[in-house]
C-alpha cells in the first residue's frame, strides 16, 4: 500500500552527510533544471498537477507562475517548516531524515522563479531539525550548491534558517512572514497575496517542506509520470502522520486514493487491544472529526472539500469509543483559544466562548440554547475569520455537530449518564 518517493531513502541515509544524498542521485534534478528554461520547469510542474501539501491544496505551478511574472526582481522563497498542527509530524520527519531533498526542492523553485534569497522557517521547538538543516546548508554551501554563481551557472541563491518562539499561528503564511520580518506573528489582510506583496514587501513563494520535497521527483520522472500516481484530482503521494490509539503510530507515505481505513488497519496496525474506533480526526486539531463508518473515505483533496476544510489529510488521529467527545473538543478549543493571534474579532473573542460553551457540555451543564449558540458561533467563526486559524478552529465542533449530533443531545437530555469521562 505504501509508495515511497519522498521517503524512499529513509531510513538508512545519513542526513548529516551530503555525500549520502549525492550517492542516490541527489541534486541531479537541480542540475537538470539548469539545463531547462525556468518557464519549462514550471510547465513540467503544471503537468504534474502538484498541489500544496500545507493544507490549502493550491496548485503549485500557479503560485510559481505568479512569482515568475513579477516585475520586481527581488524575490523570496520561503519554506514553511513551522509544522505546529497537533497530530502532524511528517515535515519534521523529512527534515530530520532527508534535509538535502528539501534544499534541492527549494533550489529548483528558486531557479524557476528567479528568486535569489530563501528562508526556512522552522518551528521553534524543533531543535533537531534546526540542527540538521543548519548542517545541510553548511555542506551544500561547501559543495557549491548554495551561494553565488552556483555551479558556474550565474544563478545565486542564499538560504537562511529562521525560527519563531513557538506560536502556532506562525504556520499561517502571512503571520510567518511577519515573524521573519521581526514582528509579532499576526496575519495580514489578503489580497495582496504573498506572490505579489510578501516578505519585506517583495514577491514571495511559500510552500511547506513536503511540497518542496516533491519537486526533485517531478523533475526526475517528468510531470506526466508524476501525475499518473494518485488520483485525477490529487496526484503523487501523501505523507500521513498516524497517531492516537493505533498499534504502530508513525509517518507513512501512500499514493493519493488510499482509503483511510486501510491506513489505520494495515499501516497503523489497528487499535491497541482491538478497541472499537469511536472517532477519527483528520489533518490535525483544525480538521474534521468523522465517525467510524466514514473511514472508507479515500485520501484525496477533493473529498475533503466536503468538510469545507481544506486542511487535507496529513494526519489521522484515531480515538476509541471510550473517549468523551467533549473532553476532546474542549482540549482542541482551548488550544485555539491560546493560539489565536488576536487580530480579528471572531477568532480573538469567539474561541473563548467556544471553550466556555464546550465546558458546559463537558460538565453536563449544557442546555439546548447552548447548543444553538455553539452552532451559530462556530458557523460565524468559520465564515468570517481573517485567516485559516480562525476559520478552521471550529471545524472539529462543526463536524461533530454534523456526524455526532446525537451525542450533544444525549448530554443535554441525560446529563447524569454523561458526566465527566
Amino acid at each position, binding site marked *: 500500500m505504501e509508495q515511497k518517493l519522498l521517503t524512499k531513502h529513509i531510513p538508512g541515509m545519513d542526513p548529516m552527510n551530503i555525500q549520502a544524498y549525492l550517492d542516490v542521485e541527489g541534486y541531479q534534478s537541480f542540475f537538470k533544471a539548469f539545463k531547462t528554461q525556468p518557464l519549462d520547469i514550471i510547465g513540467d510542474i503544471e503537468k504534474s498537477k502538484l498541489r500544496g501539501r500545507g493544507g490549502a491544496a493550491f496548485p503549485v505551478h500557479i503560485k510559481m507562475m505568479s512569482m515568475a511574472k513579477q516585475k520586481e526582481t527581488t524575490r523570496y522563497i520561503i519554506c514553511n517548516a513551522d509544522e505546529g498542527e497537533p497530530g502532524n509530524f511528517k515535515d519534521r520527519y523529512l527534515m530530520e531524515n532527508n534535509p538535502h531533498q528539501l534544499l534541492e526542492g527549494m533550489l529548483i523553485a528558486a531557479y524557476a522563479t528567479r528568486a535569489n534569497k530563501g528562508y526556512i522557517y522552522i518551528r521553534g521547538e524543533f531543535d533537531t531539525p534546526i540542527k540538521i538543516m543548519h548542517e545541510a546548508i553548511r555542506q551544500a554551501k561547501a559543495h557549491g550548491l548554495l551561494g553565488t554563481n552556483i555551479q558556474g551557472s550565474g544563478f545565486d541563491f542564499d538560504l537562511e534558517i529562521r525560527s519563531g518562539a513557538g506560536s502556532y499561528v506562525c504556520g499561517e503564511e502571512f503571520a510567518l512572514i511577519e515573524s521573519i520580518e521581526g514582528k509579532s506573528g499576526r496575519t495580514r489582510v489578503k489580497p495582496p497575496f504573498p506572490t505579489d506583496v510578501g516578505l519585506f514587501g517583495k514577491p514571495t513563494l511559500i510552500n511547506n517542506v513536503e511540497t518542496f520535497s516533491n519537486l526533485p521527483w517531478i523533475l526526475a520522472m517528468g510531470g506526466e509520470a508524476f501525475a499518473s500516481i494518485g488520483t485525477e484530482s490529487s496526484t503523487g503521494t501523501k505523507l500521513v502522520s498516524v497517531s492516537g490509539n493505533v498499534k504502530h503510530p508513525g509517518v507513512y507515505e501512500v499514493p493519493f486514493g488510499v482509503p483511510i481505513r486501510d491506513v489505520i488497519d494495515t499501516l497503523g496496525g489497528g487499535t491497541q487491544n482491538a478497541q472499537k474506533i469511536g472517532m477519527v480526526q483528520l489533518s490535525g486539531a483544525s480538521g474534521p472529526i468523522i465517525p467510524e463508518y466514514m473511514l472508507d473515505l479515500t485520501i484525496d483533496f477533493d473529498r475533503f472539500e466536503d468538510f469545507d476544510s481544506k486542511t487535507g489529510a496529513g494526519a489521522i488521529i484515531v480515538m476509541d469509543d471510550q473517549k468523551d467527545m467533549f473532553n476532546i473538543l474542549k482540549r482542541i478549543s482551548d488550544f485555539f483559544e*491560546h493560539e*489565536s*493571534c*488576536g487580530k*480579528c474579532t471572531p477568532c480573538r*473573542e469567539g474561541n*473563548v466562548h467556544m471553550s466556555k460553551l464546550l465546558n458546559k457540555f463537558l460538565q453536563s451543564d449544557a442546555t439546548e440554547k447552548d447548543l444553538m449558540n455553539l452552532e451559530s458561533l462556530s458557523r*460565524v467563526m468559520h465564515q*468570517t475569520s481573517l485567516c485559516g486559524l480562525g476559520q478552521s478552529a471550529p471545524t472539529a465542533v462543526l463536524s461533530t455537530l454534523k456526524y455526532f449530533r446525537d451525542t450533544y443531545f444525549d448530554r443535554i437530555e441525560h446529563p447524569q449518564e454523561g458526566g465527566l469521562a
Partner: protein
Amino acid sequence: MPTITINNQKIEAKEGQTILEVAKDHHIDIPTLCHFPDLDVQSDCRICMSEIVGQKKLAPSCSTPVKEGMEIKTNSQRVYNARKTITELLLSNHDTNCTACERNMNCELQTLADTLGIDENRFENILEHEPIDDNNPSITRNADRCIKCGRCIEVCKNVQGIHVLDYMNRSHDTKVAPAHGKFLNDQVCTYCGQCANVCPVASITEKSDLEKVTHAIHDETKHVIVQTAPATRVSLGETLGMDSGSIVTGQMVAALRRVGFDKVFDTDFTADLTIMEEGHELLSRVKEGGKLPMITSCCPGWVNYAEQKNPDMLDHLSTAKSPQQMFGALAKTYYAEKEHIDPNNVYVVSIMPCTAKKFEAAREEMQVHKETADVDAVLTTRELGKMIKRAGVNFKNIGEESYDAPFGITSGAGAIFGATGGVMEAALRTVSEVVNEKPLEKLDFEDIRGMEGIKEASVTLGENTFKVAVAHTLSNAQKVLDDIKAGVSPYAFIEVMACPGGCIGGGGQPYTTTNAKRQERIDAIYNVDTAMKLRKSHENPAVNTLYEEYLSEPLSKRAHDLLHTHYKPR
C-alpha cells in the same frame, strides 16, 4: 468596468474597487468598525462581512475587490447573523455600562448594537478590568472599552510616525497599549489626540476639564473669561448637529455667554500678536545671522515632538509662545491690571481643537505668576459641544453675537491659523509689508494652502528671495527636519502643524474627522478670512494699542517676558 449586483441591484463598478467602495458610491450602507477613511485597511473587525453568492464563506467588504459578475448580498440573513454575532462578541469583552460613558449616544459600537437589534447578549461578559491611563493632562485611555479595531495604532504609526500605541499580547489577552503596557506619560506621546479622534468608542478620549470649568463658572469670586481658537468656529457646529464646514462664530460667542462666561474673547487676537512677535523674530534672525530655518512653535503637539524626538533642533523653534499662551499671559497681566481684578481671580478657559493644548497649559514655563497657570483650563471643541447641550442652549437657533473688546478685535490672518499653511500665510502677509513697505498685491498665498503634506512658496523681502515651507502631520515634519539635519534644507522659515490639515483636523475636533471633512473646514476658514475687513495682523488696531499701552514694540523686554518661552529636551 465590472458589472456586479448588490442586493439584486445591477451596478457598474470601477476597476479595482472594493465591495465597500462600490456600496458607498451607490448609497448602500455597510457597517464598519476598524475601517476608517484615509487609513490603511486592516480588515480586523469583520463587521463589514457580505455574502457573495456561490461562496461558502462571507467576504469582508472593506478588502474584497469586486469582480465581473459578482452577486453580492449585504443584507441577507446570513450577513445579519454574522454581524450580530461579531457585535455580541465585541460587547462580551467591553465595559457595557453605556450610561456611564462619555460617548453614550455617540458611539459606533452602541449604534451598531442598536441597528442590529441586540437586546440581550448570548455570550457572557468576560471583561478583565484594566487600570485607566490618565497620568497626563491631555488623554485618557480606558482599556475596558477598547474593541481592538486598531485605528489609533494606524493613525499614530502611519500618519504621525510616532508609534506609541501597538497591540500587546495575543488571543483574548490582546490589548492596545503603549510599549510594555506602560502609561502614555512614560512614552514619547505628543498628546496630538489623533487616536482619540478616530476611536469608534470612548476608549481614548481627551481628559475632560468640563467639571473644573463648570465649577469655576459658578464660583462668584472668579472672573471667568474664555478664548476660542481659530479652528473651533468652523467645527463646533458638527458636534451640535450641523454640517461640516458650517461657520458658527457668532452662535458660539452667544452660546458661551449663555453658558455663563463673563467675557468671551478670541484667540485670533493673540494669533495676530503671535505674527507680530514671530514675524519680527524671523526678521531679526535673518538680519543678525540667527538660526535658520526658523520653525513655528504654536502647535503644542509639534513642540512636544521636537523636544522628545528632535532635541538637537530646538534652537530652530521660534521662541514666541502660542496664541493660547500669549492670551493667558496677557489675561493675567495687562487685562487684570486694566480691569482692576486680582490676577488670581481671573480664570482663563480656552476652547481648543486640540488635546495637546491641555498639556501646554499645564507646562511650568506657562506661568507668569507663580500661584496660577496662565490658562486655567482647556476644553476641546467636543467638550464645548457637550457643555452647550448641557446648558440647554438651542445652538442652531441662537442669534449671533460679537466678541468682547479688546481681545475680540481680530484679523483674517489670525483666523487662518486654524488651517495648515495659515500661520505661514499670515506671517508672509505681515513680513512682506513690513519689510517692503508697500501693500501686497495679492493677499492669498495659494501655494501653501490645502491638504498636500509638504508645501512650499517663495517670498521676496527687500532684495532677497526666501523659500518657505509648510508641513503637517508629524511624519511630514520629520522629513523636513531630516533635510535640515542633512544640511540640504533650502528654507528660511517653516510652519509645522502636528495634525493633518492643521488645527481644523486636530485631536479635539468632532469625532470622525476625515480628510474630506478637513477640506470642508479649511474652505470655511478661508471664507471667514475673506469676509473680514481686516486681513493682516499688523493692521489690527487692538494689537497696535496693546503695544502702545503696554508692550511698547515687538521683541521688547516686556514682550519677551510675557510672550516668549524656551524649550528643553524631554
